[in-house]
C-alpha cells in the first residue's frame, strides 16, 4: 500500500547550507551529540545499502557477461552488446509497444476517474451516503492482485463465467477474454479502474476538504451553479495535487501493474500481454540470461527517469506544482 501518497519533501540541494561554515571541531561535536539518532537510522541505512544501492551497483552487469563466479565487478566487459541485441530482437517493438499501450491507456482512462469520483462524492449532501460510497468504492483496493486476477478468470471464463452467461443470454457468442490478445488491454484497464479508483479518490477528497468553504458561499451568493463551482473552485483548488500525482504517475508509467500483467498472461494473449518487465522476468529469471535481462531492465528504468524529468520540467514551465 505504498500508494498512500505524500507530497514528497524533496531533499534540497546543498545550496541551503549556512552562510558561514562553523569550525570543524564544533561540527564534530554536534555530530557526536546526535549519535543516538544515527543509531536509530542504522537499520534503514543498512536496508537501502543492501537492497537498493547494492543492486544499483550491480546494474553494471548489463554491460558485462555476468557469471556467478566473477560476480558483479569481475565478469567480462562487453559494452552495449546486450542493449544492441535487445533493440535488434524481434520482441523489441512488440514488448516496448505493449508497455507503452498499457501505460498510456492506463493513464488516460484510469487517472481521471478518481478525480471525477472525488468531485462527485464531495458534492453529496448526505454525510452517510458519502461515507458509504467512499467505503464501498475503495474496498477492492484491499483485495490482492492474485485474487483480482482470479476473479477475472472465473467471471470471464468462456465455459461458465458470469460475463459470458450474460452475453449468451443476450444472444451473443461466448468470448474467451483471457485467451484473446485483443481483450487483454481492455480487461487490464477496466479491472485497474475497478480496483484502484476508489482508493486514489481518497487523496483528492482530502484535498477537497481543505478548500475554504467561504469560497463556495461567496460563489453561491453570486449565483453560481454547482457545476460552475466545481469547475471554478473545486477543480483549481485540487489542481496542485492533481499535477503532483500526475507527474508521479508518469514517473511510474512503465513500472505499474507488472504483477497483474504477469498474472493475467496466458500463452494465447502473449502478443499483447508481454510487457518490458514481464519479458525481463521471463528472460532473466526463467531462462537465466542475467546480463541481457538486466540490460532491458536498465533500459526501462532510464526511460522512466527521462519521462519523469521531462514532465516535471514541463510542469515547472507551466507554473504548476512540481516535485522539486
Amino acid at each position, binding site marked *: 500500500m505504498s500508494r498512500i501518497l505524500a507530497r514528497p519533501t524533496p531533499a534540497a540541494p546543498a545550496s541551503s547550507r549556512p552562510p558561514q561554515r562553523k569550525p570543524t571541531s564544533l561540527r564534530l561535536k554536534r555530530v557526536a551529540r546526535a549519535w543516538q539518532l544515527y543509531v536509530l537510522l542504522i537499520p*534503514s*541505512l543498512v536496508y537501502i545499502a543492501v537492497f537498493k544501492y547494492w543492486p544499483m551497483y550491480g546494474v553494471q552487469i548489463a554491460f558485462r557477461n555476468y557469471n556467478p563466479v566473477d*560476480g*558483479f565487478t569481475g565478469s567480462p566487459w562487453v559494452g552495449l552488446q546486450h542493449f544492441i541485441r535487445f533493440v535488434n530482437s524481434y520482441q523489441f517493438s512488440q514488448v516496448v509497444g505493449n508497455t507503452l499501450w498499457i501505460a498510456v491507456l492506463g493513464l488516460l482512462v484510469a487517472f481521471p476517474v478518481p478525480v471525477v*469520483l472525488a468531485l462527485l462524492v464531495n458534492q453529496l449532501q448526505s454525510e452517510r451516503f458519502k461515507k458509504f460510497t467512499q467505503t464501498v468504492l475503495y474496498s477492492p483496493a484491499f483485495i490482492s492482485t492474485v485474487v483480482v486476477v482470479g476473479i477475472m*478468470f472465473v467471471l470471464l*471464463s468462456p465455459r461458465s463465467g458470469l460475463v459470458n452467461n450474460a452475453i449468451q443470454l443476450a444472444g451473443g457468442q461466448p468470448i474467451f477474454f483471457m485467451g484473446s490478445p485483443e481483450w487483454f488491454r481492455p480487461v487490464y484497464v477496466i479491472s485497474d479502474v475497478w480496483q484502484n479508483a476508489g482508493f486514489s479518490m481518497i487523496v483528492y477528497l482530502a484535498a477537497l476538504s481543505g478548500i475554504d468553504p467561504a469560497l463556495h458561499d461567496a460563489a453561491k451568493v453570486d449565483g453560481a451553479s454547482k457545476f460552475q463551482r466545481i469547475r471554478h473552485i473545486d477543480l483549481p483548488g485540487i489542481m496542485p495535487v492533481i499535477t503532483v500525482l500526475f507527474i508521479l504517475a508518469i514517473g511510474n508509467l512503465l513500472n505499474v501493474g507488472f504483477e497483474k500483467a504477469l498474472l493475467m498472461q496466458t500463452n494465447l494473449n502473449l502478443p499483447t500481454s508481454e510487457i518490458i518487465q514481464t519479458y525481463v522476468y521471463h528472460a532473466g529469471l526463467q531462462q537465466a540470461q542475467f546480463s541481457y535481462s538486466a540490460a532491458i531492465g*536498465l533500459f526501462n528504468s532510464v526511460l522512466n527517469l527521462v519521462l519523469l524529468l521531462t514532465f516535471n520540467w514541463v510542469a515547472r514551465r507551466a507554473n504548476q506544482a512540481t516535485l522539486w
Partner: protein
Amino acid sequence: MSLNTEPVAAPAPVEHPRPLPKRTMSFRDKWADSAFNIAAVTILTLSIIAVVYPLYFIVIASISDPSAVYEGKVWLFPSGITLEGYQRILADSRIWNGLGNTVIYTVLGTAISVTTILFGAYALSRKDMPGRKFLMLLFVITMFFDGGLITKYLVVRDLGMLDTVWAVVLPGAVGVWNLIIARSFFENTIPEELREAAQMDGANDFTFFFKMVLPLSKPLIMLMIMVHVVAHWNSFFDALIFLNDDTKYPLQLVLRNILIQSDVSSAGTTGGDIESYAAAQRIGELTKYAMIVVSSLPLMIALPFMQKHFTKGTMIGAVKS
C-alpha cells in the same frame, strides 16, 4: 496544543459572523443544480453496483450448485445451496500450509518494517541531526531509480537468502513513501519545545523517543502496522521469485497456482467433453469461488476498523511539511 488527536485535521469550517444574504440563484440555476444532483447520485450508485455486484456474485456462486452457475441460472440469489466448495478448501492441506506461512511472514515482516521505519523516520525528522538532508537524499534517490529485478534477485541469492523466510520479509522491508509519511508525522506532531523540555530534565534521545515520541504516535504506528499487514497478506511476487520449496509458499502464491495456473493449463481443452471430466471441472470452479471468498474475507471484515486509520494516513501524507 493537543498532541494525541488527529495530527493534521482539515481546516475547521469558517464561521460566518453574519447570516449570509439570501441566495440569488435563478430558477434555471436551481433546476440545473437538481439535475446535477440527480446525475451525481446516479453515477455514484452505478459505480457502487459495478464494484459490489461481481463480489456479491462470487459469494452466491460459492454456495450454489455448480451446474446452476454453469448454466447461467445464478444471478441474484444462490440456487441449490451447497457447501462443498468450502469443505474442499478445509480439506486442502496446501491452503492451510499457505495460510500458516502467510501468518508467519506477515507478523515477522510487519515487525521488521514498522520498527525500521519508525526508527529511521524519527531520526530523519530531527532538524538538529547533522547531515539530515544528505541522508534523506540517499532515500529519495531510490524512489526514482532502482537496480531492477535481476540484480535484486542476484543480491538476494548472493546473500544466501533464497528459499528462506528472509527473502520474503527483507527485500521490500522499507518503503520510502512510508518513511516520508512517518517523517512528516513526527515533524508535525512532536513539538520541539517538548524535546527541549525533556532534554532539560536529562532525557537523552533514546529515552525521549521511546518514552515520549512513541506513545504520542499511536495513530501513525497503527497506520504503519495496517499498511504492512495488508501488503504482506496480499503479496506473492517476492515469494514467487525467491522461493522454490512449495511448502514455504504463502497463501497468495498457493492461490495463484490454483486459481490462475490451473485455468491456464485447462484453457485449451474446451473440446474434450467427457461427463466426469466436466463434473470435476465444475467442482473445481466452485472451489475457486469459495477460495476467493475465504482469502479475501479477513481483510474485508477488518476494513471498517482499518478505514479510519487509512483515511487519517492519507491526511498525514497530504500535508506539506
